């Protein structure tokens, strides 16, 4: 296993600030909950020596909505629209993660057509999520009134095409509630594959332009190369997965290593970079977008016929009762390993879980901030934070 050779300066998150140089006049700056670039409400308390950060203390929890407690009162079938809003940029992944756990515990098998559909939706959702990331990364780097916004508008233009595809299937542009225990709720319409091929063609062409931007535009390269290096050891120890881990040189992707849905029927080529800096993370995401489009193109023509839902209800409304068991199921989301730990046997005579925990990749990514930020300037902080691609709904739940 080849790991990164990047030299990351891993700081001590528990640095006692009073032992810092006595004559340094440290300024405390709150990259406060209200800030254009914290991707939601997130507070980082920065101790600055001039422009350089000495210590960073993050304070998550501003978007904590008590989703896990709420899910103890909802039934398995009612939970999907709430969980949609965790990682609100990739709702398909959230739905699939929890339903996978419920299906394993319940013992219901997902039909093959539903597995293909889930894979296609997941990959399209990955592209849409990475497009949002790219647009907001541009805004972080370039300012809301400037070149960053141009990149943002272009990325969102492409994303609208994907959302239109999802609207044809589920009726919702966003937050779909299309997965259920045992399969999917909505089937794809007849001409959908043609639309998908057209969208794949357009976006693949534009992804080439974005890659050129990240690798050849001197300003992008200067702002992202060598900035915010997270090395493999730190990432593994913190539990960071996804593009951040792959950019650090670790070849790990759940789609290939622990396949679920229909990933065992496609060849997933995993993008790995070794530098571990912002540029590496950006390039990994661009390559992932390309790979996702390729997987969708391969699968969309071969979707097998059959039912999309294996579990037939015996009475309405649809009730799934699981009386005992506990376990964990996970998938590879755009931000990393998104998992669900369920302890069954809760209220409503087993129709609710006893305890539901969402293993959110963004929370692990945020926990690297005290280690990585010291030594960077404020501008680099914004670039690093943007390149970690956090979604606060998932960090705080």
């Amino acid at each position, binding site marked *: 296993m080849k790991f990164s050779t990047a030299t990351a300066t891993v700081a001590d998150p528990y640095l006692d600030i009073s032992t810092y140089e006595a004559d340094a006049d440290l300024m405390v*700056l709150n990259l406060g909950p209200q800030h254009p670039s914290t991707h939601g409400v997130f507070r980082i308390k920065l101790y600055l020596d001039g*422009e350089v950060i000495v210590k960073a203390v993050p304070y998550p929890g501003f978007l904590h909505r008590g989703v896990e407690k709420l899910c103890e009162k909802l039934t398995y079938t009612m939970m999907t629209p709430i969980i949609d809003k965790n990682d609100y940029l990739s709702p398909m992944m959230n739905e699939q993660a929890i339903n996978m756990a419920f299906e394993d515990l319940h013992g219901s098998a997902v039909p093959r057509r539903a597995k293909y559909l889930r894979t296609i939706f997941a990959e399209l959702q990955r592209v849409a999520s990475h497009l949002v990331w790219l647009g907001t990364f541009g805004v972080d780097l370039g300012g809301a009134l*400037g070149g960053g916004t*141009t990149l943002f508008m272009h990325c969102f233009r492409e994303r609208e095409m994907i959302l239109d595809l999802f609207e044809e299937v589920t009726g919702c542009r966003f937050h779909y509630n299309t997965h259920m225990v045992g399969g999917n709720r909505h089937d794809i319409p007849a001409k959908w594959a043609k639309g998908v091929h057209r969208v794949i063609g357009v976006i693949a062409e534009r992804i080439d332009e974005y890659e050129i931007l990240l690798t050849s535009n001197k300003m992008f390269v200067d*702002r992202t190369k060598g900035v915010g290096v997270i090395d493999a050891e730190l990432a593994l120890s913190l539990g960071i997965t996804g593009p951040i881990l792959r950019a650090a040189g670790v070849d790990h992707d759940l789609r290939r290593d622990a396949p679920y849905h229909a990933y065992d029927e496609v060849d997933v080529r995993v993008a790995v970079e070794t530098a571990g800096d912002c540029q590496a993370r950006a390039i990994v995401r661009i390559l992932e977008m390309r790979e996702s489009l390729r997987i969708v193109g391969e699968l969309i023509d071969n979707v097998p016929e059959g039912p999309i839902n294996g579990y037939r209800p015996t009475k309405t409304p649809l009730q799934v009762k699981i009386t005992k068991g506990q376990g964990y199921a996970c998938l590879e989301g755009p931000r990393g390993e998104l998992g669900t730990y369920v302890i069954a046997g809760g209220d409503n005579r087993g129709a609710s879980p006893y305890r539901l925990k969402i293993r959110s990749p963004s929370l692990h990514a945020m926990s690297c901030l005290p280690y990585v930020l010291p030594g960077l300037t404020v*501008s680099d902080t*914004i670039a690093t934070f943007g390149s970690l691609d956090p979604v606060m709904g998932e960090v705080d739940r």
Partner: protein
Amino acid sequence: MNIWLHGAIYSVLIANVLLTMTAWSIWFERKFSARMQSRVGPTIVGPMGLLQPIADAIKLLQKESIVPDKADRALFNLAPLLTLLFSLGIAAVVPFSPEVIAADLDVGVIFILAMGGMMVFPVWIAGWASNNKYALLGGMRAVAQGISYEIPLVLAALVPVTLAGSMSLSDIVRHQIEHGWYIFWPPGPGLFAFVLFFVASLAEANRIPFDIPEAESELVAGVTTEYTGMKFGLFYLAEYLHTLISAAVGAALFLGGWDGPFAPGLHWMVLKTLLLFGLVFWVRWTLIRIRIDQLMSLCWTWLVPAGLVLVMAAALWKWGMAGS
């Protein structure tokens, strides 16, 4: 005409026209950036959205003017006025046409550079007086950037001065009418000096890629974080005005001022100014911002030596031409 009367009439006229143009540059920017981003821009207020600046001005005027509790009240209120004052001051010596010039100073170029240098003060004052760490950081960066980039600006402006042999802007324009615009002739020093002037003006006016002092995504609104209502409006008006005036100065110094193929006059000057102004916006909506240390190293390692070389090249050219 009495020089005082001439100066008074034309300064009022120029100031009014410039301020109106600056207000409509808001419309221009929004339409231009929208088209660059596959959007449409303002279309609702007035035909083609032309009355948008009036809507924006009314919106800003009716906002509450909040002064933070511990802010230095006098300086806080003074800063936006000073930015506007210095920007308009530069316009006093720019020759828009042979007659339309408020004050044809012998030391026009020095006057422009001095007023441009003074622009650092109000930005720093705003950063300090706001009693806000974000504003302070923005102010510090603005001072570093403003002072550093004055040097390449001065060096770039020295090239037309050397070639024309005079610091008066009208003389520089007249010399270009006789000998050809400096951007084309002499080849080499003229074009590179123009590029240097353009880059340094972007940095002086805090435009992207050099808009660190008001880096919105990092420092909320940087120097202008605590400003509300029309004071905020004045800052942005002053920034557009500074950009417009720099474009006019660049047109006068390098593009031949009011010279043109058919009928030399005011319209050519306006056209060239608008051309350079549009170029600034084009750069703004395409590029991202560079980091403060990269900005400093760009200035001191590349632009200043380039400026020195260009001034020497211009001097050599002038000496060579004078000899022949």
